[in-house]
């Protein structure tokens, strides 16, 4: 620990909001409305288990299996549930496919709805006012800031998530990846490529 005992004769006081959260937790636990063990489980799930690797697995499978891809684009929610990816909030997941004609990008203009079961907790920038406001207003400039330059002929379509519908972008499969296994393909799929603010990595 960086602190010396003589600087802090008592336990370090947490920041104000942390005390308020602790108060809520204690009240709700004492009333039997939440279980501290369940809270730990939720935190562990989102902190350590669920993350973009799940989405990457889905994308790699869609790149490899045309029938799976069709089913996914047609109605993703049951297909994903079968793979064990379903929303704890009962939301629907819609997969939107990038093509040479259309590049898709996902935002939640009102808060920060996001496909948790496939990507985990959104990064800070996804929750920022700057992204939420500008993704719709000037998507090409935002993309440029992320280092994504699209061909002139490619249109950008922005999808605004809601509590009920969350979007996942199915990026275009990179060139020169014929014969790669699903596992190798999944390694090329970045989180940002599934939000639409990035492209998959180029095959090594």
């Amino acid at each position, binding site marked *: 620990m960086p602190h010396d005992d003589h600087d802090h004769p008592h336990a370090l006081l947490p920041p104000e909001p942390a005390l308020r959260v602790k108060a809520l937790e204690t009240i709700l636990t004492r009333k039997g409305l939440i279980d501290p063990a369940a*809270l730990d489980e939720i935190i562990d799930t989102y902190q350590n288990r669920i993350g973009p690797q799940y989405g990457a697995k889905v994308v790699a499978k869609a790149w490899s299996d045309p029938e799976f891809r069709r089913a996914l684009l047609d109605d993703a929610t049951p297909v994903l549930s079968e793979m064990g990816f379903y929303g704890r909030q009962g939301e629907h997941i819609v997969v939107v496919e990038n093509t040479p004609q259309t590049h898709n990008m996902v935002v939640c203009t009102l808060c920060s709805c996001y496909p948790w079961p496939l990507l985990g907790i959104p990064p800070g920038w996804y929750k920022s006012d700057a992204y939420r406001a500008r993704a719709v207003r000037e998507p090409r400039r935002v993309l440029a800031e992320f280092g994504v330059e699209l061909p002139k002929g490619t249109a950008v379509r922005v999808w605004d998530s809601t509590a009920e519908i969350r979007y996942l972008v199915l990026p275009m499969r990179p060139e020169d990846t014929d014969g790669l296994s699903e596992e190798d393909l999944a390694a090329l799929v970045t989180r940002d490529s599934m939000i639409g603010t990035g492209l998959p990595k180029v095959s090594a």
Partner: protein
Amino acid sequence: MSICSDHNAPNPVFENPWHAQVFAVTVALNEAGRISWSDWAARFSETLRRHGLNRELDGGDDYFMAWLETLESVLAEQETALPEEIHEMRAAWEEAYLKTPHGMPVRL
């Protein structure tokens, strides 16, 4: 301004432990059927909108402050946790921290 100066850096999922805690409390209440997610999203959106009127929220601490404020107001309305209760419990925790020798676990 640039949104994504560090978008390739690996970020912790939750920047502060209390972000994770307030998130987990909300998800737990939703799973217990005490808060519907669409209501939650509508309420939370409204808080974010109000907080964002005078300044630009960066999606970090300010985002979870809005989250906490929303949760407190939903619980107050449901009379699940009243403001006085929260205030008293918060004070009890503060006192517990101040009375606990450094390095010892803090208990109420």
